[in-house]
């Protein structure tokens, strides 16, 4: 993706490292780079996170709006994703390069979240056929160092966990017009269940082996990569990004992705709960955080 020239020798070094299960930054093929997140960083959004995976830096903000449900899904809410690449995230993002990538990522997320097993859209319904919440998930990429799909899906999950939707205390249907009363107390709000929200795991084929969480250098060396959406233990999305896979390799990489996603899911959820316990649901005030 990024313009980052590598010499043949460097490429061979990375390739051999992957074969020996010892990548150029010391990781094994199953390892992720360090992650860091922080929720509730944007007060003007209902839910937000800043998520870092190594040097990738992402901010997600979620705003709910009231909308009318689709006629073929009358008792479900809506969720939509928008990716915005900051011009300095990658040199390629200047001009139109970033727009294609942004579209691809948002479509992937849309697909992964549309599966019934992955995210309960019924919870977003206010009055079947008439009124529902539509969640606008806006993703801002500040910086990218490989593996955007994974980092963004983790960030979205954290932001959804953090999202607070105003509680509707009464909804009346009065001759076709809907009369909603929202709770007066700003702290009285609904939370979303994100336990099964999908995680995207990109596996990259380098040589004969598959790795997770490729760095920018490894992305250049890869001969094929595939994005796998995993919600809990179910695969909800398969999408090749580049190259081609032998059916056997494909099976292996799915196994690898599901196992990794399961581990990350538990870690992520426990970290989210721990953070909330520490900070509490209120807006943060301490100065140590990034966006304060």
């Amino acid at each position, binding site marked *: 993706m990024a313009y980052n020239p590598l010499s043949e020798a460097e490429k061979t070094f990375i390739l051999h490292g992957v074969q020996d299960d010892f990548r150029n930054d010391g990781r094994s093929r199953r390892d992720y780079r360090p992650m860091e997140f922080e929720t509730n960083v*944007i*007060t*003007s*959004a209902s839910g*937000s996170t800043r998520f870092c995976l190594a*040097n990738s*830096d992402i*901010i997600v*903000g*979620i*705003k709910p*709006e009231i909308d009318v449900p689709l006629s073929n899904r009358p008792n479900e809410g809506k969720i939509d994703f*928008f990716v*915005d690449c*900051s*011009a*300095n*995230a*990658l040199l390629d993002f200047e001009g139109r390069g970033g727009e294609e990538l942004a579209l691809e990522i948002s479509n992937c997320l849309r697909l992964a979240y549309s599966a019934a097993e992955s995210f309960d859209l019924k919870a977003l319904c206010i009055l079947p056929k008439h009124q529902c919440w539509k969640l*606008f998930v*806006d993703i*801002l990429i*500040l*910086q*990218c*160092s490989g593996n955007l799909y994974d980092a963004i899906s983790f960030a979205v999950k954290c932001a959804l966990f953090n999202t607070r939707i105003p509680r509707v205390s009464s909804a009346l249907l009065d001759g076709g017009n809907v009369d909603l009363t929202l709770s007066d107390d700003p702290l009285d709000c609904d939370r979303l269940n994100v336990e099964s929200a999908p995680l995207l795991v990109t596996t990259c084929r380098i040589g004969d082996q598959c790795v997770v969480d490729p760095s920018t250098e490894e992305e250049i060396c890869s001969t094929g990569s595939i994005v796998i959406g995993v919600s809990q233990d179910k695969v909800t999305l398969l999408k090749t990004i580049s190259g081609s896979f032998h059916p056997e390799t494909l099976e292996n990489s799915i196994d690898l992705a599901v196992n990794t996603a399961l581990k990350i899911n538990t870690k992520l959820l426990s970290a989210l709960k721990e953070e909330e316990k520490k900070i509490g649901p209120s807006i943060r005030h301490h*100065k140590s955080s*990034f*966006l*304060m």
Partner: protein
Amino acid sequence: MNHELISPQGLRIDGRRQNELRQISIKLGVLDRCDGSSFYLHGNTKVIASISGPKHPSKASSKKDENFYFNVRVKFATFSKNGERQKVMKNSKLLGEFELNLKNIFKSVILVEKYEKSQLDLNIEILQTDGGSEICAAVNAATLALIDAGICMREYICACTASLTSDGIPLLDVSHLEEISGGPTLTIAALPRIGDHDQSVSFVELSQKFYLKDLNKIFDCALRGCEKIRAILDEAIRSNANETAISELTDN
């Protein structure tokens, strides 16, 4: 229309006094893929500015007949404002004016002759806003990013707003709440006074009307605000330089 902007005890809506700034907090070098960057928090406004360059001009910019190519790009995050989600603004008139203002402000302080035939890109992400003071936050954040990138400038350039109550008391650093309660707002960007050099103002914008007799008072108030902001920026830059120096020393 004009609500009580200042209480009989001399406190404003958010508890500040008439000549107090909102909380400012600064971080330098927040992004490492560019040559200089800064995060600037001013009250509830959050801005990230980044600089890339000086570099060889790209094809698109070298078509323009200029000696120094300075590109400014401003982006409002869709979740930056309270209330409804913002539509993605692209090439809108408002954004265009914003970018042009910033460009003009910084062309007056950057030592352009040092960067002949090269390109400098300033990129501003507004993550969260508090009223119309985005331009102030953008100017201050960009100053920090330029210094972080090591671009030669004549002086710090700081921007600040000021307003006036109906009783003629000048208010420094207007918040969104004060802005919408109907007070007039003056926005200036200035190079603060250093030694023999006098202050010079490189950007002025005035909304609504003032009596001419009040203009001096409010101008003074805003200029003093700029000086205060300069002190804060300067301290942040110095402490950042110290920290970097210390960490370099301990690393070796």
